[in-house]
């Protein structure tokens, strides 16, 4: 039943796409399309939530006569798919709600509306697919529709470049996945997931599949060093699409990884987790360091997606390690932490992108250096954006902290692992995670402080108004969910139990029955956290302080000019900017991570030239991995270009040579 509803929702979304083309010229087109997407997403959300909660024995499967004639298109709704469908459809529902208001400001709606519902359908299809063929087709469909959305503002050169890099990386990732599924299917070509699960792979081939999956799913999710397209493409799209790409599409990639590695690939080998953990640790810290160096608000958020994907993969890597050594309860803890972060990140990242979108629409600026003081002009947006900042910085009592806390608890279980490599790697990853948490807080002090606090740096920031009520409603819903998941994490952990049980064979203890709604990963004497009580205590003690002060202290208040040590300067340029805020951190970490060089040029006394400070940053990952490839391809292309200018004799000998070589190959082939 749920399956039918979900498939009809997807069909409805696919139908909306051509309908949007028909509606093209209507002025209500965007309201109709986004409104319909909102309703359809809500229905899909409801039914997937029902599928996750209602633990019926049989998992519904459907085979449609589409695709390969001897195979058909298989769809299946197990608890893992149901959970990811919840994440996807929650994200798409609020994004559609946001877009009902935000879409009015779009100057090229006909370039967004047809692709938007198709993109939503693509993401849903990937999660439901139950054979390699439909999985890959849906995956590619999702990539291409999102590519079209990235190309919305195609007249800007940067966006065209972003879309190009995205297309190249997406194709590369799909090829890797294609090969991975080829290995999984084996020589007989069992493309159905059920058949793949039954047939075991040789250890060598399984390891190769793992590497290909990391490349394929990792490039979509944004694992360093495959992340390069992400900070280019995510900000280039309209903001509600950016939110979906960062908050939801990366999660679909995580789903692909979990589906293949935890479900299809069979028992993990001990060293697999080391690869995942090492990549994840590097991803976390590099993502946040890149983010700290940005002054484009949306790009900063995109780099934070890279960081959070790292945190998710730390959870997954730990789960893989525990699973390999058959420590099921610890694997359940680590996997729950990772999956909870999947949900949490989709909530606060969408919220933050919506906030950035509202700022972009109202001021026309993505550059934080031109903003400032928006808390006075957009107070409600500022409030919800602040909630998102606190949540993503992993600060209690909001939700980001809960999943990071669980990840730390999982790390603390790792001395039980017998492998020496892991014994050294896991604490190092723990240190990287702690470092990234602190740096993320620094980065969001910068993002919120420079954008919303202080004085307006440019006139467009001064003229901003509060955004429309649909956008605000979407953001308030997400902020409320961030708080809810932060203070009642037990509910969400219990929701994940069937998913985790299906993948690693055990689950975390039941949380909803614990006294006072605490969460207790293992037992109470070892660790527990109660978001609700911490939140209540903070509220009570804050109000107590306020009460005492307003009862006994002076209430007199006078507004005056800022003090600033006696020398306030009216020029807003004297404020700290995003770049100057990050300068101490750039100096401490940047010399290693980016080979930062700061050169100051001070004119001699009497010279009226302004002093200049030049900061050079190098993207070492681009230099190391991508620059050689780009040079190599350009070089080879230049060489091969000569082939176009041969004489007829040379062409004939070329053809002859090729023929002889092929015949030789055929003769020698065993």
């Amino acid at each position, binding site marked *: 039943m749920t399956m039918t509803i979900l498939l009809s929702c997807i069909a409805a979304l696919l139908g909306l796409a051509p309908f949007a083309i028909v509606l093209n010229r209507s002025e209500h087109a965007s309201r109709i399309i986004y409104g319909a997407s909102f309703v359809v997403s809500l229905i899909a959300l409801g039914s997937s939530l029902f599928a996750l909660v209602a633990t019926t024995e049989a998992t519904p499967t459907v085979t449609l006569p589409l695709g390969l004639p001897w195979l058909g298109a298989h769809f299946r709704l197990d608890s893992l798919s149901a959970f990811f469908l919840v994440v996807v459809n929650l994200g798409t529902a609020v994004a559609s709600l946001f877009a009902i208001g935000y879409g009015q400001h779009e100057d090229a709606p006909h370039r967004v509306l047809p692709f938007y519902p198709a993109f939503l359908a693509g993401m849903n299809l990937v999660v439901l697919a139950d054979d390699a063929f439909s999985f890959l087709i849906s995956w590619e469909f999702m990539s291409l529709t999102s590519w079209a959305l990235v190309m919305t503002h195609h007249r800007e050169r940067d966006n065209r470049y972003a879309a190009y890099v995205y297309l190249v990386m997406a194709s590369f990732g799909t090829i890797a996945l294609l090969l991975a599924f080829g290995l999984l299917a084996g020589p007989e070509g069992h493309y159905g997931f059920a058949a793949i699960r039954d047939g075991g792979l040789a250890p060598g081939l399984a390891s190769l599949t793992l590497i290909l999956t990391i490349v394929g799913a990792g490039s979509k999710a944004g694992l360093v060093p495959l992340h390069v397209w992400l900070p280019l493409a995510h900000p280039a799209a309209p903001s509600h699409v950016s939110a979906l790409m960062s908050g939801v599409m990366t999660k679909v990639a995580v789903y692909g990884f979990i589906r293949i590695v935890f479900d299809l690939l069979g028992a993990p080998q001990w060293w697999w987790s080391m690869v995942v953990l090492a990549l994840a640790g590097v991803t976390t810290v590099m993502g946040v360091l890149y983010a700290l160096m940005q002054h484009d608000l949306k790009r900063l958020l995109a780099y934070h997606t890279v960081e959070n994907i790292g945190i998710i993969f730390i959870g997954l890597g730990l789960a893989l390690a525990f699973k390999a050594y058959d420590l099921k309860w610890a694997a359940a803890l680590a996997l729950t932490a990772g999956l909870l972060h999947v949900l949490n990140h989709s909530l606060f990242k969408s919220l933050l992108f919506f906030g950035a979108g509202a700022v972009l629409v109202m001021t026309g600026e993505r550059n934080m250096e031109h903003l400032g003081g928006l*808390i006075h002009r957009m*107070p409600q947006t500022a409030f919800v954006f602040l909630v998102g900042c606190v949540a993503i*910085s992993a*600060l*209690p009592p909001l939700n980001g902290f809960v999943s990071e*806390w669980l990840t*730390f*608890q999982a*790390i603390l279980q*790792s*001395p039980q692992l017998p492998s020496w490599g892991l014994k050294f790697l896991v*604490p*190092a990853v*723990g*240190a990287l995670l*702690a470092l990234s948490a*602190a*740096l993320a*807080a*620094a980065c969001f*002090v*910068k993002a919120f*402080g*420079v954008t919303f606090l*202080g*004085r307006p740096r440019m006139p467009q920031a001064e003229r901003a108004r509060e955004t429309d009520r649909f956008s605000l409603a979407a953001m308030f819903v997400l902020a409320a969910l961030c708080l809810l998941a932060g203070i009642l994490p037990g509910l969400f952990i219990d929701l994940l139990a069937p998913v985790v049980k299906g993948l690693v064979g055990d689950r975390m203890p039941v949380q909803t029955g614990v006294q006072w709604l605490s969460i207790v990963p293992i037992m109470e*004497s*070892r*660790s*527990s*956290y*109660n978001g609700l*009580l*911490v939140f209540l*205590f*903070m509220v009570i*003690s*804050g109000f107590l*302080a*306020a009460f005492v*002060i307003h009862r006994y*202290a*002076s209430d*007199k*208040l006078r*507004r*005056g*000019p*800022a*003090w*600033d*040590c006696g020398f306030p300067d009216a020029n807003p340029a004297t*404020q*700290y900017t995003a770049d*100057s*805020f990050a*300068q*101490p*951190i750039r100096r*401490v970490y940047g010399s290693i991570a980016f080979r930062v060089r700061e050169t100051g040029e001070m004119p001699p006394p009497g010279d009226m030239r302004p002093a200049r400070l030049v900061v050079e940053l190098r993207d070492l990952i681009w230099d190391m991995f991508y620059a050689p490839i780009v040079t190599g391809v350009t070089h080879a292309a230049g060489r091969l270009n000569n082939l176009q200018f041969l004489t007829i004799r040379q062409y004939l000998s070329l053809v002859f040579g090729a023929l002889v070589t092929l015949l030789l190959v055929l003769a020698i082939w065993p």
Partner: protein
Amino acid sequence: MAVILDFAVQGAQMLLVLLLAPLLTGFVRKVKARMLRRCGPPLIQPYRDLIRLMRKEIVLAENASWLFRVIPYLIFAATWVAAALVPTFRTGLLFSWSADLIAIIALLGSARFFLALAGLDVGTSFGGIGSSREVMIASLAEPAVLMIVFTLALIAGSTQLSTMASFMLSPEVGLRVSLGLALIAMIMVAIAENARIPVDNPATHLELTMVHEAMVLEYSGHHLALIEFTASLKLLLYVSLIACLFMPWGLATPAGGAAALGIGALTYFAKLAVGGFLLALFETAIAKMRVFRVPEFLGAALMLGLLATLLLFVSRSL
């Protein structure tokens, strides 16, 4: 009956940290002054300062937002909750399970996050300099603390403060290298987190190297009183935390009677006095360092913490 007693103890703890915090600050100032052969302000001067600030009117910058006025309450609440959950004279507090050590550290992180935002709110250059340096220091101090937490959690098998303190009291602990490393790292972090010399100087103003004072420069009246109170509370919290984790002698247990509580309270006062005295001694003996030397100082703490954790991963007995 037992529940009422537990409630009373938890309430007493909350009030105790609140009442003692300014006294500890006053004590440190007094000892420092005596070491410099000055007479120094009386011990209760911080209380007087707080009352004086409460009575004064607030002068608010023209473009200060609502957030600027809420932040003092927020950071006070977060720090007070954190301080109330650290066992001072008795373990097994009624609500001790509501947040473990990681959560307590994160609560302090929340307070710092909001204080750094306050520095940016008015849009002055001093506020910005303070905030940007504060987050740089925090980005090194926080991982160092977490590494120390890892070390202790691996030794005690728990991140719950009460369990950790009881484990440290038991004979199983013995002398361990990693505990020593963790203690040194913890002290270094505590100095940095509380903006003490050599990282920051709580007594200066108008100096380009200041961090904490620069962030709160625009505050006045009862807002400033709350912030100063919070700073004292944080100092008390760190001394209590070090005392509870590394020197838990004398801590009363839930099973102990009135006599045990008395002993616990007395030893707690003694520990605070010793901690305050050592802090004053250290601060008098050392010079403030340049702000870009701080990463080296805290990097050392982080490395010590990491080393301590690695040792434990290698062997549980080190």
